[in-house]
């Protein structure tokens, strides 16, 4: 489904990604682990089309189509979804209005009829229960005054509504207590299906206890230096990033 070949990307002329190669098939769940500054978040932002990053070489295709030629919104409509690490607030725009606009943009792209307000309200209420968000959150401004955990649950709510082909989760576990982690993980597991791929970006392996990946990749210095199965994550937890000869600032400071 997603094919990344020798991807290089930089921000403000500083190269962050230095040749990423990755193949993800439909139905698979991949985890990308790595220390801070390894380029994990950059990879997710580049795939989603954040224009702050410049792709200097390499290619990325989604179901054979060149992804890098597409605008951010076109990628989204082709099925790329990014759950943000730090979801931004949009004051005064109700979550409901925002979500309906997004869902209808996708439907329009697929040549389907737009959902009216009543239909959408019903759907959104159901899905919000699935991520344990009170339906009253739908009426509030997008992420406006939400706690860290509520913001993350709101991201998963969006993924469930938009039903993407490839869901990229950027540090979705950060800042979550154990209960919230459970809710978010249940939401992500509900997304798992044969025709959908999931790419999780995380520093810690604890998320992987809840969402068990098929493949684990270790990213360091802008390259994938090791790939393996679920056991690789457990090994990393036990031995630390230092085991692979990687310096992890967070570990160092602990």
């Amino acid at each position, binding site marked *: 489904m997603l094919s990344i070949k020798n991807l290089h990307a930089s921000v403000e002329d500083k190269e962050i990604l230095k040749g990423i190669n990755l193949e993800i098939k439909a139905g698979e769940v991949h985890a990308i682990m790595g220390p801070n500054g390894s380029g994990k978040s950059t990879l997710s932002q580049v795939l989603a089309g954040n*224009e702050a990053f410049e792709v200097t070489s390499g290619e990325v295709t989604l179901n054979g189509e060149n992804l890098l030629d597409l605008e951010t919104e076109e990628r989204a409509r082709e099925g790329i979804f990014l759950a943000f690490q730090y979801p931004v607030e*949009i004051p005064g725009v109700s979550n409901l*209005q925002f979500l309906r606009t997004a869902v209808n943009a996708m439907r329009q792209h697929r040549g389907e009829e737009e959902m009216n307000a009543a239909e959408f309200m019903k759907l959104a209420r159901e899905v919000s229960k699935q991520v344990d968000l009170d339906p009253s959150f739908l009426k509030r401004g997008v992420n406006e005054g939400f706690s860290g955990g509520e913001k993350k649950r709101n991201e998963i709510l*969006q993924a469930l509504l938009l039903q993407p082909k490839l869901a990229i989760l950027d540090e979705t576990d950060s800042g979550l207590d154990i209960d919230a982690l459970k809710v978010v993980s249940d939401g992500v597991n509900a997304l798992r299906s044969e025709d959908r791929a999931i790419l999780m970006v995380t520093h810690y392996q604890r998320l992987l206890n809840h969402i068990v990946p098929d493949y684990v990749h270790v990213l360091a210095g802008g390259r994938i230096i090791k790939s393996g199965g679920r056991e690789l994550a457990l090994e990393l937890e036990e031995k630390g990033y230092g085991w692979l000869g990687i310096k992890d600032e967070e570990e160092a400071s602990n």
Partner: protein
Amino acid sequence: MATTDQEVNELIKREYEHGFVTDIESDTFEPGLNEDVIARLSGLKKEPEWMLKWRLKAYHRWLEMDEPDWAHVGYPKIDYNAISYYSAPKRKEDMPQSLDEVDPELLKTYEKLGIPLHEREKLAGVAVDAVFDSVSVATTFKEPLAKAGVIFCSISEAIRDYPELVQKYLGTVVPHSDNFFAGLNSAVFSDGTFVYVPKGVRCPMELSTYFRINAANTGQFERTLIIADEGSYVSYLEGCTAPMRDENQLHAAVVELVALDDAQIKYSTVQNWYPGDEEGKGGIFNFVTKRGACQGKNSKISWTQVETGSAVTWKYPSCILKGDNSVGEFYSVALTNNFQQADTGTKMIHLGKNTSSTIISKGISAGRSSNAYRGLVKFQPGAEGARNFTQCDSLLIGDRCGAHTFPYIESKNKSAIVEHEATTSKVSDEQMFLCRQRGIDPEQAVSMIVNGFCKEVFKELPMEFAVEAGKLLEVSLEGSVG
């Protein structure tokens, strides 16, 4: 980031929709201003002697006044003798007696603007006074309103038919000596709307005036007077558009509101005068004095304005809170794009006991525009227990525009309470990225973010117009991201 800015820039560039010119024969004065011009104007309108005297007195006072230069705007010096002070579509008769007699070309114009003058059509719940250049061409729903005792007519008619009311109130809220533009207006005002709501009457429908400038090199000087007698209520809305022209045109209006004991006036404006082109060429100079007097106890005046048009705006709808317990409100959205300049805000003058006022101002600047909020909150010694709440928010789109806030607070009463909040924010790249990542067009994203920012003000507009205002914002924002 650069790319996003460029996109936003493109979004803001949409053509002004109402820029067409109606091809109609007009009677237009030669440019220039002197006593003869004023006398001719007054004569054409068959005004009584006192009115002409009133105008001439204002004219002489105006000659001694200086054009204000304190606003945060810049524009070339206006030659007041290069302007024509009267232009009206030619008529076969003196006044059309009914809508059927109105020139079809004019009816078409208003239809094109989305303001059908046929009473059975779209705006069935709204009575309209249509002002074209210097004259009122039609007023709808006069009869049902008259049944309720409400007078709704052009100010020219009111001067002839209700001289006592006009003489009693005209110039009492905005005297001709108030400021340069009010002085000019008092001398040469051509038409406008008059409303009187009698004691205890709740006006059965929304009233509105639609102002259209059509003729070139003409100024529009309208005058509106609304009186709400004891215990009455009225909601009034005005809308304005003009053709696209390379020359600037002057619009200097005066609006006076009077609310007696327990009366309420809700006054809403959707201002969409031609703003000039992308290079800042042309557009309307909108120099307007609007003021309401809460004369009676427990009275209330509420101003809501959505200002998206005009090259230069100089406008401060204000409230004089004289009656005890009276309430003044000002809700404003001012959007500037390209080279537009706006200096707008309000004055809340607290005179009576326990008077209260609320100011919510939302300024949006895009392109290379400049947007200033200027507000005065004043508590006189008698304003025991008075209070004000002010909230001023600015939203910047791109990095070449400017937002300024000039709040003035004067208190001569120790018991008065003032609260002031101000914020400045940007449509951020992160917000744009979030919206686009969810499949939303950049254009739709900007308009959604801006609409969210204005929500508190839009909810104050009459329902029929809240949607329109949202759309207007969308159009005005086109090509703005930059």
